[in-house]
């Protein structure tokens, strides 16, 4: 056993103490943080320069849909 093994075991023991509901919150935090970031992106980043302004041409909605599905998946499974 090298010192790295001891450090690894210590980290593993610490992570074993984290309750699974907290872990689920961590998993949910990833898409939630990304969703907030995507919704705050300026319009010129998420639309084409030739965009007519229709909602379907704004990538913000597609990205939000993908992330909302992720949130649903990690909330219920």
């Amino acid at each position: 056993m090298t010192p790295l093994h001891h450090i690894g075991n210590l980290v593993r023991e610490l992570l074993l103490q984290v309750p699974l509901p907290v872990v689920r919150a961590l998993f949910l935090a990833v898409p939630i943080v990304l969703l907030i970031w995507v919704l705050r992106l300026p319009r010129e980043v998420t639309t084409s320069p030739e965009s007519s302004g229709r909602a379907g041409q704004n990538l913000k909605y597609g990205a939000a849909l993908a992330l909302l599905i992720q949130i649903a998946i990690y909330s219920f499974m």
Partner: protein
Amino acid sequence: MSLVATDIGGTDIIGVGGAAYTYGMAVGNFEWIGCVPAMIVGAFVFIPFFWRIDVGGIGNLRRELQRIEQSAARHSAEPVSRDGALPGGAPAKPTGNNAEVVQYTELILPVDTATPFPWTGILFGLGLILSLAYWIGNQAIVQRSLGAKSEFEAKAAYVWGAVLKNLIPLIITVPGLIALVKFPDLADGDRAFPSLISVLLPVGLRGIFLAAFLAALMSIVVVSCVTRREPEEKLRYVVGGFQP
């Protein structure tokens, strides 16, 4: 669609289905948290960057970054950061073996799980490191978006690909779980999907599936030849022309 089709191949249908048979639904993490967040970040942060510096591939990107570094080094005595360098590589694909399985329907497994998918590896290793390396630095993937007509379409490919990715486990993971119910005594998880095909599909459809599966395998072989061996530019175009 092209991005997702590049990522998913014949080996995934057998391998991921087999892993789901052996370890349960947790293997779906590779398509969910292992893809979607990285694709969204890639769409809005990295794809515009690739387009602005007009790269033709990851090899060109590395050369471009080296050129920028050399240029910066000439103009400044300050050391130049290599933070922009993009490593290649793909998320480790699961392989089946006979580990003890406890929770077949759980996505988030404890640190001491009997499967190879503890939450620490999935969240920190797959979700925050490997998926970004794969979706932003893998030649076969990024090349698809660089072939788009415009920067917007490249970004749209990543975003709508991310939406589609949410459905992929239903195609490749769930059959493994169905096989678990129908054939609980298989010795090898990789036999799960073929067993389903041989029992559930009628003779004609079985042949069509086999043809489609072989086509998918050949596609993977060609992509591997084009992207891994780094042949001469001309040869690369010739070989790439045969790619379905």
